[in-house]
């Protein structure tokens, strides 16, 4: 059940609702301080940004846009983006859904919550998908499901490893049961990639929850998580409502998930690129011109 998940995520991170675009250095941030939603520590925005948007106090890896993620992950200029212009329809005629999306497209310069494509990481060919939580909390509707499925199918056909940076509030309720079915569609594509012997690396970022945790995000051959990020199935408030008490702060953190056996490794943001490159090489990946 995904009840209250969106509000949970919002409540938990209500200090973090600034658009990451604003945090970009060249935009001259209007506010010069960063307040961490995890430890409430305050640091200079410059220090926060030069620390890859990781809280200098507690190491919380804050949310970054798909664009920023690609910049720090793939070789410069190597992205060949897939399905850039795909946009959602309104399968259950949900009131105001098209208008809401039009506004978000304008605001985020994204057409939905995932960017997919082929790229290189340290010269190695990969298929990459990055979810962007600024777009409806990166919930999974038809477009996210279809783009991810196509990315997996492309990786399978071309014998390429696929790297997915997950972040999501879960299924997109505005698309009703159609969004639920995207869990099956994407997981089916993972199954075929597996059957063909393809490598799939998941990188769980803040927040990875709900129907995304309960489908492709949990199915990587290797599951990496960024430090301190939120990972879980049910919303925190839903669980607190059930048990009538407060949950410990580290519940559903990356560290909690690793302790319980659901994450292979926790890797700091600045080391993810090289970690992925090493893992791909270990699985026989070769540079494009070798």
């Amino acid at each position: 059940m995904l009840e209250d998940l969106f509000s949970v995520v919002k409540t938990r991170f209500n200090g973090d609702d600034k658009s990451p675009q604003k945090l970009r250095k060249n935009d001259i941030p209007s506010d010069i301080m960063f307040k961490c939603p995890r430890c409430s520590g305050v640091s200079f925005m410059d220090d926060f940004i030069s620390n890859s948007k990781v809280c200098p106090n507690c190491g919380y890896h804050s949310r970054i846009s798909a664009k920023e993620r690609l910049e720090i992950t793939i070789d410069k200029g190597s992205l060949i983006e897939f399905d850039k212009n795909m946009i959602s329809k309104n399968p259950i005629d949900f009131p105001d859904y098209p208008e809401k999306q039009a506004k978000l497209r304008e605001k985020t310069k994204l057409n939905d919550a995932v960017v997919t494509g082929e790229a290189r990481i340290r010269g190695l060919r990969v298929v990459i998908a990055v979810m962007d939580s600024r777009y409806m909390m990166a919930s999974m509707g038809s477009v996210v499901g279809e783009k991810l499925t196509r990315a997996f199918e492309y990786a399978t056909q071309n014998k390429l490893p696929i790297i997915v940076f997950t972040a999501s509030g879960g299924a997109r309720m505005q698309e009703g049961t159609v969004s639920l079915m995207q869990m099956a569609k994407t997981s089916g594509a993972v199954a075929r990639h597996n059957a063909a012997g393809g490598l799939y690396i998941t990188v769980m970022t803040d927040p990875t929850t709900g129907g995304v945790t309960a489908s492709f995000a949990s199915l990587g051959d290797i599951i990496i998580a960024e430090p301190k990020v939120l990972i879980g199935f049910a919303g925190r408030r839903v669980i607190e409502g059930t048990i009538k008490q407060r949950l410990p702060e580290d519940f559903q953190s990356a560290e909690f998930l690793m302790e319980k056996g659901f994450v292979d490794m926790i890797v700091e943001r600045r080391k993810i690129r090289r970690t992925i490159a090493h893992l791909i090489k270990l699985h026989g990946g070769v540079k494009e011109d070798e």
Partner: protein
Amino acid sequence: MSSLLASERLDLIRNKYRPTVRDYIPLIFDDFFELHGDRYYGDDGAIIGGIGYFKGTPVTVLAQVKGRNLEENKASNFAMPHPEGYRKALRLAKQAEKFHRPVICLIDTPGAFCGIEAEERGQGEAIARNIMEFMTLKTPVISIVLGEGGSGGALALGVCDELAMLENAIYSVISPRGFASILWKDASREREACDIMKITAEDLVYLGICEEIIPEPDGGAHISADETADNISKYLDDAIKRKLQKGIDELLIERYNKFRKIGEFDELV
């Protein structure tokens, strides 16, 4: 077919006399043996698994258990499975694959359980694993939503060759209550949510998610469990024969494509 609103069907599926799998299993299957446990952690009363005959054919049955009274509901956790329930279902599905038995999933859950232990034992991973493994399970899988099909907790038994729904069943991404509480911050608007979510059997046939609607007696399934069970049997008889005729490769391609085609999108020009 039913002309009731989704919210009126909600009343029917919450009727305390609505039959549950404990009523249906003896009416539909012969010589049913319940098999327990996931072999990792424990046995989850929210999902019954077992083997028996359906009209002479050995089958595996996986069923979510709504209780008919408080005591039964305590034992079955109000049909909200923990990870070990999904892992038991997967174990028995793999066993069915080994012995070439069709798998019949009877879905009736408000959703997977949301609790500390469920998270600690990997609720998300358990559901994800079932969804993926059922997609390539080399034996026919038929799923039927009997009452509530709630979210990922239902989908974990819903990756199948054919999905049928009882006439008044609903199948949704989130409970109507949860939907209202998230989108309108007002859980009391549950009925209103129910009516705009497009979650009835007819809606889901229209959306390409459900293949078949199984009729209920006039007034709802609780009017006659026998008649409802008969209707389920008639459908299953057909569906199993249809699927057993196909080669496994063809079946798996069709299963993949059944889900592959769901989704509505456009290209911006």
